[in-house]
């Protein structure tokens, strides 16, 4: 886990910088490109014209396999075995990274591509779904209620988890003691809690046992319960890597513990804390399963978290996509684009804050 991966202070291996590897030679590039083109041509000829195969996935798989074989063959003409293995491994590792980044790109592009049908209709952002049937065209109805519901639920959940999470982290790192170790163990254990189980817990305690109606407040509680261990743990990791020399310096100047925490530890940790918190919030915004169990889904705009059902973006996406109605699915993808844009925005803010902190030091 990340906390254990933190390098011990006092070991400064960054002093020796690794040398830059030699650039590729013309031979390297030629064999790579040659193998790629040769295998493509060969597979195209065999796969589509001679053998009775079809399907894009099979084509790409055959091309890739043959490319590796050809690349190895071409390299082995002029290089010894270890070099051939090195080239092959390099090709495989590069393609693994390309597949992963490609998959990420395809997810983002696909969501916005499918959302493009609903997004240009501005009523998507200004109207709710009250009185609008799922199959009605995209000119009527919108997701305002889901956006507002998401913001309210997240706002409530974050305001609780922020105080409790950071407070717990401060307690675990700055106050300490035997009880703090118990708290840390339990909090770390609870990060393993699947979000649906957190939702089920709130459902059976608040809604079934205490008869709280399905509402925004129930959903916010479920999100808070799910997010609390995550935020407390990441904040703990951030606070633990603050050099104890800074605290010592503060104490040496006569500061009290509270002053040290407020004036030294928290300001030093601020960029790290902000990044961790924003990423935690991004995770909570997109979480569907706790909301699915606790909020109920309304079709109308509801700004009162205490009464009546409240919809949210993930829940809206989930219910529209499962309806099977093409226009409803288009609307669902519109909501998915908004959700993804929100997460991207949070992520970019987190990155900017993190970068600022690096630049300042």
């Amino acid at each position, binding site marked *: *886990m*990340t906390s*254990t*991966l933190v390098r011990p*202070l*006092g070991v400064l*291996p960054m002093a020796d910088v690794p040398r830059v*590897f030699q650039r590729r030679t013309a031979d390297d590039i030629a064999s790579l490109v040659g193998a790629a083109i040769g295998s493509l041509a060969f597979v195209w000829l065999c796969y589509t014209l001679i053998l009775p195969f079809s399907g894009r*996935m*099979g084509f790409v798989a055959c091309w890739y396999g043959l490319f590796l074989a050809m690349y190895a063959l071409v390299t082995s003409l002029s290089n010894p075995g270890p*070099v051939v293995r*090195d080239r092959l491994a*390099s090709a495989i*590792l590069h393609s*693994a*990274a390309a597949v992963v*980044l490609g998959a*990420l790109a*395809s*997810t983002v592009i*696909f969501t916005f591509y*499918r959302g493009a049908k609903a997004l240009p209709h501005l009523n998507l952002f200004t109207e709710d779904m009250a009185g609008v049937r799922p199959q009605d065209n995209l000119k009527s109805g919108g997701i305002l209620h889901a956006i507002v519901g998401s913001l309210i639920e997240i706002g409530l959940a974050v305001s609780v988890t922020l105080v*409790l999470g950071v407070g717990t982290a401060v*307690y675990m790192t700055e*106050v300490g003691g035997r009880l*703090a170790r118990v*708290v840390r163990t*339990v909090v770390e254990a*609870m990060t*393993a809690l*699947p979000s*649906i*189980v*957190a939702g*089920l*817990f709130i*459902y059976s*305690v608040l809604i*079934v046992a205490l008869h709280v109606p399905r509402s925004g407040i129930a959903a916010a509680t479920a999100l808070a*319960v799910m997010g*609390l*261990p995550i935020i407390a743990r990441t904040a703990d990791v951030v606070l*633990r890597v603050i050099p104890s*020399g800074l*605290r*010592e310096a503060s104490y040496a100047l006569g500061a*009290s*513990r*509270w002053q040290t*925490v407020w004036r030294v530890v928290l300001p030093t940790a601020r960029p790290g804390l902000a990044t961790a918190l924003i990423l935690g919030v991004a995770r909570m*915004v*997109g979480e569907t399963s706790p909301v699915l*169990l606790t909020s109920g889904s309304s079709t109308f705009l509801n700004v009162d978290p205490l009464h009546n059902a409240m919809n949210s973006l*993930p829940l809206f*996406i*989930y219910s529209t*996509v*499962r309806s099977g109605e093409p226009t409803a699915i288009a609307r669902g993808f519109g909501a998915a684009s908004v959700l993804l844009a929100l*997460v991207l925005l949070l*992520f970019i803010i987190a990155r900017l804050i993190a970068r600022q902190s690096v630049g300042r030091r």
Partner: protein
Amino acid sequence: MQPAELDLPRELGGSRSPSDRIFEFTARGIGIMVLGITGSIGVFLAYQAYPTIQRYGLGFFTESAWSPDQGKLGIAAVLLGTFSVAFVALFFAFPLALGTALYISEYAPPRFKSTCVSLIDLMAAVPSIIYGLWGFFLLQPHVIHVSRWLHQNLSFIPFFKVETDPDAAVWAQTRYTASAFIAGIAVAMMVLPMACAVMREVFSQTPVGEKEAALALGSTRWGMIRAVVIPFGRGGIIGGTMLSLGRALGETIAVVLIISPAFVIKPRILEVGTNTISGLIAGRFGEATSTQLSALLTAGFVLFVITLLINTLAAIIVSRGRSGAGTDI
């Protein structure tokens, strides 16, 4: 666990100022409160699980049907489904995460490196429902061809059996949809960045001196990776994989979007219909009576205990590895 062992903070004595006392009191209060909230979940789940386990006994783990009206209730089928989805996810996520982590730490040009790290972090932040949509709408129409191919050519392996004729002129496409295989691929997208981040973190701590030594002895870059980086990061590779396994077991929405629920013990991962514990909870909580609810809570408790065990084991493995214990060069 304090990172700095060289300069230990001195023991603070003497009287404390009022502000300090308030601070400590408040911090301790928050800590106890959080302990109460988080701890109560575990206690509550265990408390709810007890009567169910008492009533159904070990049959709860061996019965596959979930029909509380007939008094037959068990998680054998959903447990198997949970693990088959998770293992399909790991089958795809593990090599890709390892390859990407090695690429980022060893091959990526310095300027591209931080972009890559950010992109992997972004991948972890993308909501799971988006991956569910991606798997259902974009992936499924393509993957059923792969499923059919696997069925045609590898059906001697019991996992790849599907109860239909793959060579029929009009093959039954719907038999290959909504399977554990497709759900597993979507879950792989979700757990991959987690595994990749842990692995990369460990690889990046490989002592530069040892890497340089391998290169100086005439090793190729791959030789250096095999001789230095992978042995050094073994703890991170295993630990990161197990952490992502824990996450994969608990994943709900992407799975629920893709699979069609079925309560039979089915090791045939390519075939339509399976179910997971989280899928069971999401599907059945609405109409549950109080006894059924406690049965669902028991299922949730079992899931939680499994993920907790896996995460704890992963944390121990990550910290045990050489990479956790500083470097000696």
